[in-house]
């Protein structure tokens, strides 16, 4: 009789304990989905030999040649060549393109003027650029130009 009573009490305690544990926790699942895409980014950096850029490290920088003339003084970082018919001023500028999540080994860089320039001629890396169409060259990632 005593055993039966003890067993009954034990069973009751087990049930209470089990119920208490079950009732004080709650579960949930959050299913997370994402689609990773490869991407590249272009920024302009000041070149050590060129004009210091405003907005260096961004994709919207400014390069100011300052006052230029065939024979007068030119600003730091500006190089000049003069002929009988024209003179050229140039500055080095770095372009850095970074890639992520892509096996691509290189990229093509193109450039064109934002607006027509009927007076001056422009070149980038020796390639003439106009506002008519983009001119390009192939480059490797993470390199400065």
């Amino acid at each position: 009789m005593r055993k039966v009573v003890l067993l009954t009490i034990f069973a009751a305690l087990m049930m209470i304990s089990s119920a208490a544990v079950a009732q004080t926790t709650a579960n949930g699942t959050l299913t997370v989905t994402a689609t990773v895409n490869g991407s590249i980014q272009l920024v302009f950096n000041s070149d050590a030999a060129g004009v210091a850029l405003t907005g260096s490290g961004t994709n919207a920088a400014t390069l100011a040649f300052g006052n230029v003339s065939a024979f007068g003084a030119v600003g730091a970082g500006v190089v000049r060549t003069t002929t009988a018919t024209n003179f050229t001023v140039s500055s080095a500028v770095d372009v850095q393109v970074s890639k992520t999540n892509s096996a691509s080994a290189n990229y093509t860089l193109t450039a064109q003027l934002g607006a027509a320039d009927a007076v001056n001629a422009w070149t980038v890396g020796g390639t003439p650029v106009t506002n008519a169409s983009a001119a390009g060259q192939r480059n490797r990632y993470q390199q400065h130009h």
Partner: protein
Amino acid sequence: MLKTYISIMRGAALAAMLLCGGSALAQTTATGVINGVLINKNGISLQFDTDPAGVTLGAAGTNAATANFGAVSAFGPLAAGVTRPSVTAANFTVRTIFDVQVIQGGLTSTTYTLTANLAAAAPTGLSYKVDAVTLTTASQTIQTNAGYNTDIAHNLDLVVSTAAPGAGGPAVGAPITTTINFTATAN
């Protein structure tokens, strides 16, 4: 004498009517007693809610919700409710915010502990954080002493390796799905 007789008759008639009326009422009512037994069980429940600053959850308000970051990349545009807190050479992080609400009833407990774990190992090139805790398949504590009956915002970070697919980076161009298990335990 006649007057007395009439009065007696009227009294008798009135008594008879009252008796009839009483009898009629007794026949249209019945009473009974139900012995109801109420077992007041205590417990807590957990639900995910959409945070105003995060992505809209699928099945919000339930304990089995979905959060879709959409297309993510280091430099490209992101979906509404997704931010990109950091981009390094090695990885980038995209973040959204979701709410957890735990409701309790019948308990004296005033706070709960929230734990989380990945249902399976994270896909290659990805790791998941909740409130800066990097998740694994082992349960980890996200928050202690959290209050009941209110939405509590949590950051969900997806850290993506910038490596190319096959070189330690994640697969690209297809949805990658991971399940995170959460458990709230009453303190």
